[in-house]
């Protein structure tokens, strides 16, 4: 009986202790998104029949959750590039929406650099919230961290971005900038913030594996709100005393992390992802109005006349022969990447453009895929093998049929596959099987799309990648601009030239 009484007393004591402790504590809420790439409207993810996302629904959910307790709305980067809705307005639309949603702070992602530094500075100056980048040197518009007081809790938010930014955007976009170690940066600012904050949050755009590594190496981080790897972390992950959260991608979910803080320590937490899906009558009016406004402008921009074609541009016959449109696109790619030759798949060119006025939407219909330009060193032998693969199914009019620039070749469709290509010339000279040439292509073929193996083999044999003199260098890879879609490069070219008159130039000759 005495023992039972003692146990009961202990339970009561613990209960009272917890109640007292929580009574002295404060609750705050962190709402977070990452890698939005500005998908403003709901969409069905590949392989799914469920409509997810939609900015007015995301905003509505954020507003609802804000009312429940003191909250901050954070973005872990990659907001301003991706969908046409963002790209066509160089992300002005995105910042207006983020202002409308009352974001409290964001960190730069690697794609925030894709429109160049001048545009980035303009967007930062339009934002009604601070933009962080503690490990970016050379861009004064950024803050390394901010301190916010919320329900009596002082939160320090430090922003870090992947050091690999120069490897994934055009060199001119990061000229003069330095991306220093995110680990050293976090250590430096945690030291500086000692005594100034109750909770330290790192707003990170370095990816979940690197977030884990950061949590293991750097002590003093209470929470990492991450992005970059598009990881769907359904419950907060604990590494030591650090919590890591990340909210998937494209606004398909809203991350929610509730913290209970006492005496500068997190004594309780609950985190989850709120699924965002369209619900009639649940749209946030402010963001809905902004979406509608820019949607009308999207139509206007897509209808914008950018130049004139002096003849029909043939996108119909790209799977069985050389066409002037295939030549035109291949030439632009060679020019943009300063390659010796271009080799692309005809199947990537989806339709024709009629003689006369050329509009943005015409180019977007020709090149609807989110492809970008890559330039890789191949030997003459590998180029010939790639051409052999390209013409190996011409009788079936498969998408692998090549469109080229900087080279000419003949082929015989009646000969057996693998022995069809004859007389390959590069810039007027017979191809040298042992010499290396720089070949521009798209990212789809670079990873073996349409059965092309040569580029993948070159990537495989290319050693470490680094940035030297502002350019990404690998042993075999000399150009890769993942931040700029090929269709936008073509639009820009037509805008510059105004009148275009590409011809068939006997680059690909069929012999019988």
């Amino acid at each position: 009986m005495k023992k039972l009484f003692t146990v009961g007393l202990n339970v009561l004591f613990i209960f009272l202790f917890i109640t007292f402790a929580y009574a002295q504590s404060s609750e705050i809420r962190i709402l977070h998104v990452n890698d939005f790439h500005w998908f403003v409207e709901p969409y069905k993810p590949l392989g799914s029949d469920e409509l997810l996302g939609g900015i007015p629904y995301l905003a509505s959910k954020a507003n609802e959750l804000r009312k429940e307790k003191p909250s901050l709305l954070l973005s872990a980067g990659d907001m301003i590039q991706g969908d046409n809705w963002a790209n066509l307005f160089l992300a002005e639309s995105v910042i207006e929406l983020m202002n409308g949603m009352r974001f409290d702070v964001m960190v730069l992602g690697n794609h925030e650099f894709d429109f160049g530094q001048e545009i980035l500075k303009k967007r930062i100056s339009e934002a009604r919230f601070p933009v962080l980048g503690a490990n970016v040197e050379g861009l004064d518009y950024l803050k390394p961290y901010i301190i916010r007081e919320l329900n009596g809790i002082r939160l320090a938010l430090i922003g870090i971005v992947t050091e690999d930014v120069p490897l994934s955007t055009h060199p001119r976009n990061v000229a003069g900038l330095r991306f220093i170690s995110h680990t050293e940066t976090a250590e430096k600012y945690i030291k500086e913030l000692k005594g100034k904050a109750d909770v330290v949050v790192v707003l990170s755009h370095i990816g979940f594996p690197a977030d884990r590594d950061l949590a293991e190496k750097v002590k003093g981080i209470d929470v990492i709100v991450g992005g970059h790897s598009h990881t769907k972390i359904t419950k907060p992950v604990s590494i030591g005393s650090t919590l890591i959260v990340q909210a998937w991608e494209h606004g398909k979910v809203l991350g929610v992390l509730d913290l209970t803080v006492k005496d500068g320590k997190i004594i309780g937490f609950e985190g989850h992802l709120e699924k965002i899906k369209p619900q009639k009558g649940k749209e946030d009016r402010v963001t809905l109005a902004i979406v509608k406004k820019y949607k009308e402008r999207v139509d206007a921009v897509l209808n914008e006349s950018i130049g004139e074609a002096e003849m029909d541009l043939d996108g119909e016959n790209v799977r069985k022969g050389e066409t002037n449109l295939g030549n035109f696109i291949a030439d632009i790619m060679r020019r943009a990447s300063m390659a010796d030759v271009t080799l692309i798949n005809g199947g990537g060119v989806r339709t024709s453009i009629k003689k006369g006025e050329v509009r943005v939407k015409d180019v977007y219909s020709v090149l609807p895929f989110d492809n970008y330009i890559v330039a890789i060193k191949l030997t003459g032998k590998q180029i010939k093998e790639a051409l052999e693969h390209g013409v190996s199914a011409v009788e079936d009019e498969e998408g692998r049929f090549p469109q080229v620039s900087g080279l000419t070749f003949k082929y015989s469709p009646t000969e057996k596959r693998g022995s069809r290509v004859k007389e390959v010339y590069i810039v007027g000279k017979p191809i040298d099987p042992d010499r290396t040439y720089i070949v521009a292509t798209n990212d789809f073929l670079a990873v073996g799309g349409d059965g092309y193996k040569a580029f993948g083999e070159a990537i495989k044999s290319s050693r470490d990648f680094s940035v030297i003199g502002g350019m990404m260098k690998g042993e075999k890879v000399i150009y890769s601009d993942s931040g700029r879609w090929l269709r936008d490069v073509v639009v820009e070219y037509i805008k510059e030239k105004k009148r275009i008159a590409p011809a068939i130039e006997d680059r690909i000759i069929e012999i019988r």
Partner: protein
Amino acid sequence: MKVYVNQKSVDVLPGMTVKHALMSSGLFKEIEASKKAYDEWGNELGLDGALSDGMKIYVKNCKT
């Protein structure tokens, strides 16, 4: 950069994404057929997610 898809190594460029790794491994069609990509800790990955050297991706049926 080397990543692993269902334990098969594939080589991709910096700046490429989960989608590129799946295409390179020949498993992209599995996603179209409703399978999903997960990291080594069992978290689902978006197709536009950034890759890191040595990353392990698993393509499998959706978690319920």
